[in-house]
C-alpha cells in the first residue's frame, strides 16, 4: 500500500513538473471563482466538525491542528 502511494506521488510530482506555462491572458477559466484551489469560506464549519469527529486533520490549505480540545 505504501509502495503504491509512493509511486502515485512520484507520478504526480513528475507530471506536474513538465507542464507548460499558461499566459495571463489565457487564464479566463483558471481565474473563475469556482476554480480556486482552496476550500470555500462556507466550508470552514464543516471542516471544523470533521476535525472533531474524525481522527484526521490538515492538508487542505487551512488549519492543520491544535487550538481546540479535539483529536
Amino acid at each position, binding site marked *: 500500500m505504501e509502495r*503504491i*502511494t509512493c509511486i*502515485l506521488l512520484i507520478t*504526480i510530482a513528475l507530471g*506536474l513538473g513538465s507542464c507548460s506555462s499558461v499566459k495571463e491572458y489565457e487564464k479566463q477559466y483558471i481565474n473563475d471563482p469556482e476554480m480556486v484551489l482552496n476550500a470555500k469560506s462556507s466550508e470552514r464549519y464543516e471542516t471544523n466538525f470533521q476535525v472533531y469527529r474524525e481522527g484526521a486533520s490538515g492538508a487542505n490549505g487551512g488549519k492543520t491542528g491544535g487550538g481546540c480540545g479535539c483529536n
Partner: protein
Amino acid sequence: MKKTLSIFIIALIASLAFIACNDESDETLNSDPITGTWKLIAMHTNGQETPVSECGLMETYIFGEEQFSHELFNGSDNDEGEDEGEDESDDENDASENDETEVDDTPEMDDTPESDENENDDESDDDPENGSNCTSAGATVGFWSTQDSQAYTLTSAGGNTELVVYFENGGSRFYYDHTVIENGQEVTLRYYFQKQ
C-alpha cells in the same frame, strides 16, 4: 492535454483504490427472543383468569444481552414481600398472592399493558405523585443463559432459577407456569408478559 487527463484519472482511481471499507462497527443485538422489556399483563390460576392489581401489573422483566432484571411492586398498604435474592419463584409467588387479595379500587392509573406510558412508569415508580400508591419492592439483577431459547437459567446473587417460557403472538408475548401447593392441592399459576 492527454498527459494532464491521465494524471487526473490516475488520481481519481488511486483514491478509489485506497478506499478500505469498514464493516458496520455496531454490535448486533442478541437475537434471542427473550431480549427486551416485558410487563405482566395477565395471570391465570388453574386455567382461569385471575384479577391482578394495579401494582401487580407493574411487574417487569428486562432482558439485556447478558443480564436480566426482575422488578416487583407493592401497594402502599403492603410493605412486605421484599425477599429479593433467595428464590426467584417465591418472590413472584408472594407478590402475586398479595396482589390477588387486594381490592382493585386503587386510584386511576393507566395500567394498560400496551400503553406507552408503562416505560414512564419505570422512571416514576418511586414517585408518589404518579397517581398510584405502588412502590418498587426492589429489583433482582443477574445473568441469564439459555441453550434452546425456551429454558432460561437466571443467575442472581440469590442463586439460580430455571424459567421455562412459551412464546406466543409472534414472540411479542410469553408465559411461564409456576406450580404451588395451596391447601394441600396443586395450583398452577400462569403469568403472561407482553413485550414493551
